[in-house]
């Protein structure tokens, strides 16, 4: 899976227009830029777009100029999510699912039952049928 992630990130990096966005250098001391790339086709996985926050520091000493650029944040506003691999990669952003242990309630106070009870025979045998009989009584 690690290999798959590397491959995916490689694709994202290729899709980014990093160079043109950062080329507009000015003689300011510190500048922070938010750059969003276009929606690019990430190979067969679908569309992806990446937003980077870049902090640029320019130090001028006499005629000597030193420029450093640092990526301070990366977000992915558009991403593919229809394959296991994509889902795995995107899992970082997944909301947590709540988890509990399966329990059986035998005398529930309910109005109706949702289930895969499609056949008449199963319906006759079901709690739903008992519930209905009780309502009609």
């Amino acid at each position, binding site marked *: 899976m690690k290999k798959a992630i590397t491959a995916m990130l490689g694709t994202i990096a290729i899709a980014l227009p990093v160079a043109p966005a950062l080329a507009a250098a000015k003689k300011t001391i510190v500048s922070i830029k938010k750059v969003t790339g276009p929606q690019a086709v990430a190979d067969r996985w679908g569309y992806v777009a990446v937003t980077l926050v870049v902090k640029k520091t320019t130090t001028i000493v006499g005629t000597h100029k030193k420029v450093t650029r640092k990526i301070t944040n990366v977000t992915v506003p558009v991403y593919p999510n229809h394959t296991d691999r994509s889902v795995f990669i995107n899992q970082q952003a997944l909301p947590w699912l709540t988890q509990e242990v399966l329990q059986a309630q035998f005398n529930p106070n309910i109005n*109706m039952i949702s289930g895969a009870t499609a056949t008449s025979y199963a319906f006759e045998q079901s709690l739903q049928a008992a519930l209905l009989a009780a309502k009609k009584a």
Partner: protein
Amino acid sequence: MAIRVEHVMGMPVVVELRDEAADDEALFDSVFGWLRCVDATFSTYKADSEISRIGRGELTMEEASDEVRYVLARCEELRAETGGYFDARVPSGVDPSGLVKGWAVDRAAAILDAAGRTAYAINAGGDIRFRGGSWRIGIQHPLEPQAVARIIEADDLAVATSGAYERGSHVRDPHTGQPPSGILSVTITGPDLGTADAYATAAFAMGATRATHWTARLRGYEALTILADGRVLATPGFP
């Protein structure tokens, strides 16, 4: 309260009106009349249905009714949305049954809305649409026929469940042809029963791992997945 149960579209359908009125019987007639009309048009078991005629090449999409064209177009959208796990295409042509039941109930609910009813429930073989007041809907326990696994409380919602405890493992992964593994049932809630039903069918066919990942990403719909190891996983907004 007024209730009518009829066997239509191959399953028992329950319509419950909370507030009784003089036109109850006429309203029941019109709802079940609509459902029988859907059955006559969409059934793959009836040789003269539009779906059967399309399958035999006797009816083109252009000649089909608006309802059939809409449902088949929606099936294609759902196939794309679910990564192919909901797929109405079959060797004999097309079988949109996985969407038709929920869609037909949504339209039946619209009949009740148009008649001014604000508190009712329609249950078609375990897929339910209800509104008005507080409804307590049990989710069938997948291993205990006489028990429920969870109770939903809401006042306006669609609930669809797909599982293997009934009719054997009739749902299969369309990509592998195999029954899904590690999963007992998936329940989807949301505004539209047709969509909820298709999502539940697709998620169940995905099997445990893929289904939990996929349902966590749904927009506008919530999911409760019961796994074979006894874990019950729900999206944070599940009612």
